[in-house]
């Protein structure tokens, strides 16, 4: 499916549930509400025309006042790809696990939980794996986190 066909198809079938965001000339970007994430993810994967069966990546973003979780999914049969993001509040962010739909999500979500402190509901194995086991200094990828022993060179700041 080409980009335009995909856009049309999604506008037709997922009206209102996938809100299109500005994405320039490249892959389509949509917004999904956190409540119906799993439902939409399931629909995107099982839709015979879309068949988005391949999870490329889940990226968490700290946008200072809120968190975003961006899911990049692709179809191996249809040669198309899209991204959709879930916007989460900065206080107590919670998101439902998609590992039932794409098993690959397991580690990406674990990483999100560990580095950003986004709580993953219904995840089967939320344990530390990138950070040391005894880590208790918060979530290092958040923007307000600074390494305790990080040496700065003020004259190099720009």
């Amino acid at each position, binding site marked *: 499916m080409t980009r335009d066909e995909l856009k049309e198809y999604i506008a037709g079938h997922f009206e209102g549930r996938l809100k299109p965001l*500005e*994405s*320039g*000339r*490249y*892959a389509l*970007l949509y917004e999904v509400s956190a409540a119906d994430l799993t439902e939409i993810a399931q629909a995107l994967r099982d839709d015979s025309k879309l068949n988005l*069966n*391949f*999870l*490329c*990546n889940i*990226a*968490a*973003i*700290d*946008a200072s006042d809120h968190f975003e979780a*961006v899911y*990049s999914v692709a179809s*191996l049969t249809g*040669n198309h*790809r899209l*991204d959709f993001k879930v916007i989460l509040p900065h206080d107590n962010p919670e998101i439902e696990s998609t590992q039932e739909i*794409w*098993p*690959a999500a*397991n*580690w990406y979500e674990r990483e999100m939980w560990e580095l950003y402190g986004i709580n993953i509901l219904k995840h089967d194995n939320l344990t*530390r*794996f*990138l*950070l*040391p086991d005894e880590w208790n200094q918060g979530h*290092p*990828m958040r923007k307000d986190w600074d390494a305790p022993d990080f040496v700065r060179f003020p004259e190099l700041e*720009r």
Partner: protein
Amino acid sequence: MSKLKTQEFMVNMGPHHPSTHGVCRLMLTLDGEKVVKIVPVIGYLHRAIEKICENRTYAQCIPLLDRFEYVTSMSCEYVFADAVEKLAAIEVPERAQYLRVIMLELNRIASHLIFFGTTVMDIGALTPFLYGLRERELIMDLFEMTCGQRLTYNYITIGGVSHDIPPEFIPKCREAVKIIREKLKDYEGLFNENPIWLARTKNIGVLSAETAVAYGVSGPILRASGIKYDIRKNEPYGIYDRFDFNIPTYTHGDAYDRYMVRLDEIRESLKIITQALDGLPEGDIRKKVNPFTFKPPAGEIYNRIENSRGEMGVYLVSDGTTKPTRLKLRGGSYNHLQVLPHVAVGGLVADLVAIFATFDIIMPEVDR
């Protein structure tokens, strides 16, 4: 007769074990020699590249990204530079495009040669490891001649490439292509029908197509499982749509197929390099971009390319300043390590080694 009481026991394979390339640690539960459970423990090579990149300008990110997946540094640079160029709508000069393709494919071959060497070494044959590295040396020399480094190149910059190739590059590259093509016959003679090799790899670690897709497995491993998917063909980036090459695909998804796919890919890459050398135009090698003040417009993009280990991607968020807001790196090995327990459980320790080797997992890509 009463049954003998047996007990499972735990073995830590890694973080410094000869066959867990780098610092991967696998917590194995063994029943005798049989693997009952595998828990991968990662993070020993976590260098917080993503966090550091948030405090660097776009030009300064590139040397850091070289360390993301240091076996094929060129593709790390490429995937980032390409993403930034897409965001900022920079047209890369034609010559730079060709040079990028040549370098990417040379690097893919170098990576596959390392794969060949380490895999056969993990399975026990020590000499061919050196043969693989010997041919890789030709490619490293080409890189050093062009950009001055052998491993962390900092060659592909935003807007083009940093150096033009020296005049002696093209004849030397053609010679290297010829040599590697010939040496491939040696490799095949050594292993393709060697009964010991067949016994060690045929029907070992079978990864079904469904599992592979579900776990986001990509690259040669996915193609060994029978799915003909290559981002170079299916979603062409750069100028890959101009070259004529095949996607080698096998059907069984066992260790032998994973090995064969990569050997075949070396051939295809050689083909691409020959075509690119033939078609190399004259002209500029880079669009001038000021490394200090370069600001892509605000926006976000997920860019992905086909790396020697599968899909390599970046999720880049720019807010219009000189530094990226978020740079999420995605490496193929991350998913491959995730699927490893599903493939290797039930086999022997020796099989685990063969599977780990043919998955070609390298840890910097997992830990970042």
